[in-house]
């Protein structure tokens, strides 16, 4: 590199690096408190107070959980494929984190992008990465060399294929309306009307498929504690289990972010309440989706596997395709 680290040309690199580090800590902290939030909300919905022993109002619970997970013994089954077994959690985690490289959190101002980078194919980048994240689950279950994880990972593969199709289809409608795949561009396109109104069907399909995509109840067939003893992560323990756990929650955050950006207008303020900064609106909307997923989990029982597949292929995919065709025709007719 020519020039010292303080020159403008070089500063681009370490500013990005700094952004990465800050964002990493923010996302991990958000994960920790998302977990606490989930346990609290689920507790309330089940008439329990939720964790409240560690720290005031249970606020130190995530720290204690982390210490516990780190101190636990890390077991590898004899029959496991050692390399892939150890690699799988990292595939899940790294892809889950990488998504945040392109997510914009607020209105880009000159010299302040509010994201690590504004990629012009942002949504495609996210979809590609979340698809790779599934490999972590599939390979982890496969490499465990044990029955239940294998069943879990087989389910994961099938479920992801069937739901990712419908998910992508539901997002294409938004892309047609916005005419761009840049996340900033999509949000700017929602200045007048948030896309969840013209794309309501797409919005519903996205919400449903996102639950399946993140393996959350009622679509948590991959884990299915009752049938598969934890599914793909049965054999995992200690920190490796923790990594899968982190990845699951970060994926939850990711799908909430995408839903916010694509359907709820990202950081744009509703009713012209622009007094509140955009980042706050963004966080409120993401929080709403997080709550919604927790709410779903504590309300609905798990799907039966054949119904899950039938629902994905026979309902979600055709409806998403129809929605895509209708949107395309309407946009084409109106010019």
């Amino acid at each position, binding site marked *: 590199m020519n020039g010292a680290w303080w020159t403008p040309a070089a500063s681009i690199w370490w500013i990005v690096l700094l952004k990465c580090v800050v964002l990493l800590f923010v996302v991990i902290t958000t994960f920790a408190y998302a977990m606490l939030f989930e346990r609290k909300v689920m507790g309330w919905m089940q008439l*329990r107070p939720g964790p409240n022993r560690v720290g005031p109002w249970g606020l130190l619970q995530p720290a204690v959980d982390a210490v516990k997970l780190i101190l636990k013994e890390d077991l590898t089954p004899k029959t496991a494929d050692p390399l892939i077994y150890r690699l799988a959690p990292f595939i899940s985690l790294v892809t889950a984190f990488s998504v945040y490289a392109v997510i914009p959190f607020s209105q880009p101002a000159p010299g302040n992008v509010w994201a690590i980078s504004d990629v012009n194919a942002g949504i495609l980048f996210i979809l590609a990465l979340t698809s790779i994240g599934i490999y972590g689950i599939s390979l982890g279950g496969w490499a465990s060399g044990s029955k239940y994880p294998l069943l879990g990972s087989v389910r994961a593969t099938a479920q992801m294929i069937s739901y990712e199709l419908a998910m992508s289809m539901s997002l294409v409608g938004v892309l047609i309306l916005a005419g761009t795949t840049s996340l900033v561009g999509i949000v700017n396109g929602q200045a007048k009307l948030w896309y969840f109104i013209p794309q309501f069907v797409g919005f519903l399909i996205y919400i449903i498929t996102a639950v399946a995509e993140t393996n959350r109840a009622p679509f948590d067939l991959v884990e299915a504690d009752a049938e598969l003893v934890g599914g793909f992560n049965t054999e995992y323990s200690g920190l490796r289990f923790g990594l899968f756990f982190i990845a699951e929650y970060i994926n939850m955050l990711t799908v909430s972010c995408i839903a916010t950006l694509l359907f709820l207008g990202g950081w744009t303020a509703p009713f012209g309440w622009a007094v509140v900064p955009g980042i706050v609106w963004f966080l409120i909307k993401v929080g709403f989706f997080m709550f919604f997923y927790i709410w779903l989990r504590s*309300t609905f029982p798990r799907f039966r596997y054949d119904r899950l597949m039938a629902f994905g292929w026979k309902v979600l995919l055709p409806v998403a395709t129809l929605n895509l065709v209708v949107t395309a025709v309407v946009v084409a007719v109106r010019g």
Partner: protein
Amino acid sequence: MARKKLYNVGALLAGLSVTFKFMFQKKPTIQYPSEKKKHAPRFHGLHELRRYADGKERCIGCELCSSVCPANAITVIGAENAPADRRSPGERYAARYEIDELRCIFCGMCEEACPTDAIVLTPRFEMSEYRRGSLIYSKDRLLVPPDAGVGTPPDDRPNGIPADLGRVAEKKSTVDWRTGYDATWRGTVLKTQKKGLAG
């Protein structure tokens, strides 16, 4: 058909509204160690042996409690009162009195059987120990301290837990938890009782 029920959106929304309402309901949880539930006035908990106002033991070593005990948890060995050192007003007193709280089913029949109201069940129920042997309460822990007062007999208890109950629970086990309790003595006593040789 089942298929129709799967797409019953109204039912899904109804379910969501139920969980949402539950979120704001009052939680029935009692935060146990810091917050304790009030027990019924005659709750059957840990035993204690009472005294008379003059400090003499009520127990006369009659072994009625021991023989009525359905769980075989009580062991009593009576002895004659020495004229110089009278432990109880009667002829005899309990030289050894032990209750195995692990065997005890807290039915309260010892309390009913006792002719002198000596044994009483208190509302104390927290008696965790590190060793099984430590849960065999001997007389030094069962007998109330002389300064604890006479106590309320079980039939005269007011509508609530009498404040003087349960002083026994304050006493720690005298058994060394590392070595445990010497159960052989109790074993021989039980054997002799079975043979009808207990004196």
